């Protein structure tokens, strides 16, 4: 076997390495230094964010009258949004993680995650110009839809289970979504028709929104915007629970749903709670949808049929015009500080709860 020229302890290559050793060491130190600077910058930024809010926020007399309605508005928007997003997001997550065929899951998950990327201004536009006027005319129908939806789905499902031949049922396992589309659309149509009928019968006054741009519209659109957050995080939590857990229960005769409800959901619960908290935090801070479709009237009430003005929207509206160092500016920053603190708190809570989930999963 050919072997190249014998190596002495100082070959030309060793000399070359020796020559470059200094430059290489300098480069290494340079990288280390720039990394350190980057880290310090970030630390500075993380500290500067709350610091600048704290430094400029002012508690001028009468601040409650200005800030509290804004805070109430933010909460109202976020609560309604989560009321919409939680059933949709959690339901979809349960379906995706536990019942959907893998091919479906591979499509649905990125699809909803893509939906998360839709710019808020686009959703706000649709909410303000299309959804709000339409919903103002069909509040009754929408109420009927809300009430009728769950029972219709449940009844259709149980009828299917009782009546359809088992062979069909097996074929449709994992494709129940298609089955549900028909009752969904029928409920929509029925609710619209019934709503119009009631309205024509003079019952419109029962649920007459004060303004088309109200809490209901915000709840729906902001809910849709937040739904992917809740979906994505709770899907991850549910999917991470080992499948054997459910299979064991099913082997004992539990149905798929019972296995999920009694076993998987409790295990994944911290993840779902974290998803809820993060979704709420996102809804609190979301600006454009609320800015465009809420009417921006500062009110202290919880009705879905009245408008609202949130801290975030108020900041976008008033901050560009506020003169630095004025009382108005101080109050704006006070409200921003409140928002910042709330979001921070929610995030920290979510992180803690998620840590619990991780430990629990390691235990399994």
């Amino acid at each position, binding site marked *: *076997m*050919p*072997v*190249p020229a*014998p*190596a002495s*302890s100082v*070959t030309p*290559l*060793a000399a*070359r*390495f*020796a*020559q*470059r*050793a200094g430059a*290489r*060491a300098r480069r290494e130190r340079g990288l280390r230094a720039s990394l350190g600077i980057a880290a310090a910058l970030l630390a500075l930024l993380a500290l500067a964010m709350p610091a600048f809010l704290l430094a400029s926020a002012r508690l001028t007399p009468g601040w409650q009258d200005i800030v509290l309605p804004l805070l109430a508005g933010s909460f109202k928007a976020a609560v309604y949004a989560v009321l919409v997003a939680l059933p949709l997001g959690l339901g979809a997550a349960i379906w995706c993680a536990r019942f959907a065929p893998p091919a479906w899951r591979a499509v649905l998950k990125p699809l909803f995650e893509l939906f998360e990327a839709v710019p808020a201004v686009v959703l706000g536009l649709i909410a303000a110009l299309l959804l709000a006027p339409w919903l103002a005319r069909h509040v009754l129908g929408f109420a009927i839809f809300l009430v009728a939806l769950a029972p219709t789905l449940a009844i259709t499902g149980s009828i299917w289970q009782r009546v359809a031949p088992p062979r069909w049922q097996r074929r449709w396992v994992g494709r129940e979504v298609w089955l549900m589309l028909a009752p969904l659309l029928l409920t929509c149509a029925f609710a619209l028709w019934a709503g119009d009928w009631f309205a024509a019968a003079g019952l419109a006054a029962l649920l007459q929104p004060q303004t088309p741009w109200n809490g209901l519209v915000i709840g729906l659109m902001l809910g849709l915007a937040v739904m992917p957050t809740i979906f994505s995080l709770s899907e991850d939590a549910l999917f991470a629970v080992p499948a054997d857990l459910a299979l064991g229960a099913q082997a004992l005769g539990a149905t798929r749903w019972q296995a999920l409800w009694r076993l998987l959901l409790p295990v994944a619960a911290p993840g779902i709670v974290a998803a809820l908290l993060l979704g709420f935090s996102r809804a609190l801070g979301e600006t454009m949808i609320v800015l465009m479709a809420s009417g921006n009237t500062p009110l202290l009430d919880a009705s879905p049929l009245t408008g609202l003005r949130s801290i975030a929207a108020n900041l976008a509206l008033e901050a560009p015009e506020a003169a630095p160092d004025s009382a108005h500016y101080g109050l704006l920053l006070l409200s921003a500080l409140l928002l910042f603190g709330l979001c921070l708190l929610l995030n920290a809570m979510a992180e803690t709860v998620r840590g619990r989930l991780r430990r629990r999963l390691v235990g399994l």
Partner: protein
Amino acid sequence: MSVVDGVPAMPTGLLDGLDLALEARGLSLDYAQRRALDAVHLQVPRQRVTALIGSSGCGKSSLLRCFNRLNDEIAGCRVRGDVRVLGLDAYADTTSLPELRRRVGMVFQKPNPFPQSVAENVAFGLRLAGIRSRLELDDRVEAALRAAALWDEVRDRLGDSALALSAGQQQRLVIARALAVEPEVLLMDEPASMLDPISTLRFEELVVALRERYSVLLVTHNMQQAARVADYTAFMQAGRLLEFDTTDRIFTNPRLRGTEDYITGRMRESGGQ
């Protein structure tokens, strides 16, 4: 016979008159949770092949990685004792890690070529030396590939991705990559365990050929392999080096009962396959 103060059972005067490539004295190594090496004494002579045998988890790999200080990469890993590489203290503050690692090449259990072309893989270390001339790079790449007995197989595929080579070729490519920077010692961590029998054979021939110029410390699970290629063999158990001798004597007439048990047990096991 027993091991006193970590000094292995070893015939007196065995390595007299031989230069030492590597030397460990009272070497202990602790990971965060457990002790991996316990007062190990080992001497590896120059331009010989020394095999390190022992059951899984006995600390062979940990010992190997003390000689090029790759253990430094593991968080919570503490080393005590004396490690000399080519006569220099490896753990001294003045030791330059890059230079130490250049002089002590390493081949891993799994072939780990970079996701680049065959030629670029071999040229990696040369570029670190600041060599830019195409001509010189080509010459040195060719020499390294010849030394690793790979040149004839890849001379027409130098531009292809290294990941397209077979596992055996990848392992020799990795050796060529290590040889290119002109090391003096080669550490090999079960280098043939992922290879098929024919590739293993070629690989062993290569190791024997390398012996002419390099000091080789080879960790292996395969007794026959140790018997075929190694001049000396060291036996480790539970973080301690128990016996060191010429390969012939270790396999025919070990001094310790434990060594014999391990070797014969293994022999029977692999003989039955």
